[in-house]
């Protein structure tokens, strides 16, 4: 019966398509700053239909003409709801922009869909938006709010080791996450060897994570998409911004209008650490002036946008960041030695939005992304004749992308929102290039820094967000991609489906299937975010990684606004790579293709998520039960073994309590099953004297027996963080905040790694390294 009703409904929609129709379209903006609001909800109650604004605040709804008066309701999380009546003249289409007023005091501060759309109504599953305000208020390591670490609080997302910013999503590796900043891939998202991410929260407007049910517009990685958007900059009079002081770094953000008619805006944000301010003088003091070393990082975000007309808008944004470690040696106050290690990302984006008529929205993007890692050494030394000779070396690894992409959003009728697009990316890989220069030995002069490989990658997609009926909604699409290697052109056609069925108005069942392909690999067998981790393209021998993921879930919002969801997933991965037995990523004498092996992986689990969005006490609770395995032809003798980050239980809770109007308290607690590591389980004697087989000179008396790879489970990880924020509005209207935090409040010695060692009696002992004891922090910020 229900199916008949659904079919009938579709037929009615089709019949309606022959009646006179009109379109209302335009942009949704923040009333104060004029920034466009992505994902705001637009409802037409007379028609019982709705839609959402796209990433650039554009909306379009086409409905049959039924009269001159149209009621429209607009809502967006943290903003006052708007209900307006619009006059339609003889069914003519109109373009109308709306401005929404911020509630000022953001109520929905914990992980919410930023959209007011309830979780059970969307066809999208396995995705969560993290409001930047929440990220700023959560307790943080050394008082430095961090986007990537905040994502680790979501179910299905795990952090790597203590303090690291890398994420492991539904059993995937750290290279299987596509991290986008304004649509541009960021290849190394960490500062200070992974302890901080490169994203400055002052410059970020939204963070959205997809861990399954991937819409067809995304591709290129197997496990997750992290879509980070920079702020546009407020179109308000004068210059506004924030300034923050922390233990590790300080930062500022300035924004303002561009031109006189609120046509555009700009934003500049910068951050710099001052670790070197302490380390450098200390090293000079310790060495008696013969040595000086230090470390710092900085990053800079710039963005501007301008309305060329009602239907055209351009955006330019850029990010630059760098980490640098330096070591200098002096002799008689003259520098005779220097060693520098630096690495950093540069991203750039130019975008042109154009509205074709009132139903089609086009977006042309040109992107640039670069990650570069350099080791530079130089030395001055006198030879036996007293002649001063110089020697310098440069070792460089680099990946650089140029991309061009065109996307179209087509709002033909309210039951179909079609997105389609195509793009091309030219990757340039320069792995381990070397330049050597010597004044005395010209024969060593070498330069392979131009030894690059250029690889094109193409992709295109089409997806349709279809409402079959009030209850049944789906997002169906397909993503196509191709990648060229010297003798192959790999292609992949990836179907994507996400379906939602409303059981009751507040209950829905969701299911999804995604097929993904990945053409680049990250070479790293270290869980620490070392800058030496090397991005390399697949080859004729190393094939693209692919995955298939199925997910099934239930979503519900209670009358009081509590959200609850449960999702089960099953993911298989092919051609994942792993280092072979006995290989080391430090071994540069062996080709990386020889050091790795292709195999398969699979993960499955159950994620539960509860969140309370409103009231004085808000918070989230997430629990994940997961299983994560790998299998390779020869590694572990071909047997199945658990992935390093196979964590059976993962429990997280984050709460925020508004004690008074100007004081809020926050706390996080995490509990995770320990990592799997390879530990010897016993030892036995090695063969003695099998002549002609073993060389006596290399004979060793014992063998440590490893039952299998990752056979030992480290102790569980748990940690409590606390923070308190004191807010005050100054006489000049500035908003001042003091933040006091406590990381690892009960001083848990969490295992970082465990290794066998020998004590003074020659006995083997196991040593556990833990990184961070209880660490207090303090921060200050001023918003003006």
């Amino acid at each position, binding site marked *: 019966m229900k199916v008949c009703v659904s079919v009938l409904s579709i037929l009615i929609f089709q019949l309606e398509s022959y009646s006179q129709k009109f379109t209302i379209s335009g942009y949704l903006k923040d009333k104060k700053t004029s920034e466009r609001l992505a994902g705001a909800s637009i409802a037409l109650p007379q028609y019982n239909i709705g839609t959402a604004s796209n990433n650039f605040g554009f909306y379009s709804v086409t409905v049959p003409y039924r009269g001159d008066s149209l009621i429209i309701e607009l809502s967006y999380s943290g903003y006052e709801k708007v209900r307006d009546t619009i006059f339609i003249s003889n069914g003519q289409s109109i373009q109308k922009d709306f401005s929404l007023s911020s509630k000022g005091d953001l109520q929905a501060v914990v992980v919410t869909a930023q959209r007011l759309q309830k979780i059970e109504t969307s066809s999208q599953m396995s995705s969560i938006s993290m409001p930047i305000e929440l990220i700023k208020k959560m307790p943080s390591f050394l008082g430095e709010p961090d986007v990537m670490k905040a994502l680790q609080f979501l179910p299905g997302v795990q952090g790597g080791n203590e303090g690291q910013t890398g994420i492991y999503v539904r059993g995937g590796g750290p290279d299987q996450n596509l991290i986008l900043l304004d649509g541009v891939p960021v290849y190394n998202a960490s500062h200070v060897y992974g302890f901080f991410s490169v994203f400055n929260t002052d410059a970020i407007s939204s963070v959205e994570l997809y861990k399954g049910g991937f819409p067809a517009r995304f591709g290129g990685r197997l496990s997750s998409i992290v879509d980070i958007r920079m702020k546009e900059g407020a179109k308000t009079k004068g210059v506004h911004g924030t300034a923050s002081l922390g233990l590790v770094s300080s930062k500022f953000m300035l924004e303002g209008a561009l031109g006189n008619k609120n046509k555009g805006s700009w934003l500049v944000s910068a951050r710099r650490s001052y670790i070197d301010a302490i380390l450098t003088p200390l090293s000079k003091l310790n060495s008696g002036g013969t040595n000086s070393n230090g470390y710092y990082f900085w990053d800079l975000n710039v963005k501007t946008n301008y309305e060329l007309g009602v239907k055209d808008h351009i955006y330019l944004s850029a990010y630059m960041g760098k980490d640098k470690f330096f070591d200098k040696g002096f002799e008689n106050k003259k520098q005779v030695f220097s060693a520098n290690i630096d690495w950093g990302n540069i991203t750039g984006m130019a975008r042109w939005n154009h509205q074709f008529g009132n139903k089609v929205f086009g977006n042309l993007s040109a992107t640039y992304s670069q990650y570069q890692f350099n080791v530079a050494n130089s030395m001055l030394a006198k030879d036996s004749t007293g002649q001063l000779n110089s020697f310098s070396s440069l070792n460089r690894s680099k990946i650089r992308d140029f991309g061009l992409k065109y996307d179209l959003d087509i709002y033909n009728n309210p039951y179909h929102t079609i997105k389609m697009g195509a793009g091309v990316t030219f990757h340039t890989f320069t792995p381990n290039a070397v330049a050597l220069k010597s004044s005395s030995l010209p024969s060593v002069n070498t330069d392979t820094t131009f030894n690059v490989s250029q690889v094109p990658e193409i992709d295109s997609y089409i997806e349709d967000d279809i409402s079959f009926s009030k209850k049944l909604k789906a997002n169906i699409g397909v993503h196509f991609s191709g990648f060229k290697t010297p003798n192959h052109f790999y292609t992949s056609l990836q179907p994507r489906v996400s379906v939602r069925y409303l059981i009751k108005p507040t209950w829905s069942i969701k299911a999804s299937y995604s097929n993904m392909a990945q053409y680049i690999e990250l070479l790293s067998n270290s869980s620490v975010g070392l800058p030496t981790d090397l991005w390399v393209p697949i080859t004729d021998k190393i094939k693209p990684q692919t995955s298939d993921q199925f997910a099934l879930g239930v979503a519900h919002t209670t009358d009081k606004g509590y959200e609850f969801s449960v999702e089960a997933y099953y993911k298989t991965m092919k051609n994942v790579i792993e280092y072979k037995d006995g290989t080391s990523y430090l071994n540069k004498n062996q080709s990386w293709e020889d050091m790795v092996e292709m195999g398969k992986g699979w993960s499955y689990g159950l994620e539960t998520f509860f969140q309370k969005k409103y009231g004085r006490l808000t918070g989230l609770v997430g629990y994940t039960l997961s299983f994560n395995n790998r299998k390779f032809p020869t590694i572990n003798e071909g047997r199945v073994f658990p992935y390093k980050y196979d964590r059976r239980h993962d429990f997280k809770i984050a709460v925020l309590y508004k004690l008074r109007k100007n004081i809020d308290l926050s706390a996080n607690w995490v509990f995770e099953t320990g990592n799997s590591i390879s530990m010897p389980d016993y*030892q036995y004697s090695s063969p003695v004297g099998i002549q002609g087989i073993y060389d006596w000179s290399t004979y060793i008396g014992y063998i440590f027996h490893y039952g299998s790879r990752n056979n030992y489970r480290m102790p569980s990880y748990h940690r409590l963080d606390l923070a308190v924020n004191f807010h005050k509005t100054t006489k000049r209207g500035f908003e001042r905040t003091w933040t006091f935090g406590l990381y690892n409040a009960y001083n848990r010695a969490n295992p970082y790694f465990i290794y066998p060692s020998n004590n003074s009696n020659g006995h083997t002992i196991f040593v556990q390294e833990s990184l961070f004891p209880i660490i207090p922090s303090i921060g200050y910020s001023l918003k003006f």
Partner: protein
Amino acid sequence: MKNKRILIFVIIVLGISACKKTVTVNIPHSSMITINYSNFTKDGGNTYYLDGSLKESKRISEGSIEFSNIYNATALVYENGVLVDSLITDPYTFQYSGKYLSNKFNHYTGLKTYKMVVSASGYKSATAEDIMPSQVPFTITLKSNAKKFVIPEVSSSPTSCDQIEITFTDPVATNDYYSFNLSSLSLKTGFLIFDADAEIDLGKSEPGTVTVLKYGTVFYQDKNFNGKQKTVQLYVPSQSGEDYKYILNSNHISKNLYKYQRSYINYQRTLGDPYSEPVLVYSNVNNGAGIFALRQYQTDTLR
């Protein structure tokens, strides 16, 4: 160099706030029998005796690398299910080596299955079996100063090398494995050079490249020359003087021995490197540790 510096820096950064403690890793372990056995010949013919040791495995944290001998063990060898040998302790070396020896020489026949069953009071009975490879004669020739190779560990300029050429016919219809080990008391270096050979896969992406081996042993399978006559060329840095000799052991080995040897050499190579992935040394012993592996072999003294 660059990685060292990075690691030093990482350690400094981490060390500022690092805390270290000794932990007990409770891995249940009850001592097992370690079988380390292969076959030997005294006359160079195809009658063999088994030689090796029976020792006790132990917990990692027990420190010293001395392993207790297994006393009063019963070690029996079966050929296709028929008892052919019962090992006895070697009265001269048992105290320090845990050595049990064959009671007699046996004709170990190619392609027959041999099973070793070891039982001793206080231990689970350990078993291991292997298939004896068939007899393959090797023809060896030596040529002095035949070719020059750059051996980076020795010198940046080419080093003159002697050539050892081994010719044999690979049996048809079986997967065969070979191992060649060269030794000499007066070898200048431990390097053995395996010349480019596209038919031999030493686990590299480009099989046809020169490979410098540090352990004097090369081993491979017949995947690309099954059933054909094969000539292998090995090179060693040339020696001067009249008083040196090369001793070449040419082995037609079982798959078990091949797998064990590959993993064991890999294990040796990575000892002391904390950043390398762990190596699982292959074992074919059930309810125990070690290896019971057979081979047909030929020893030649060259020059």
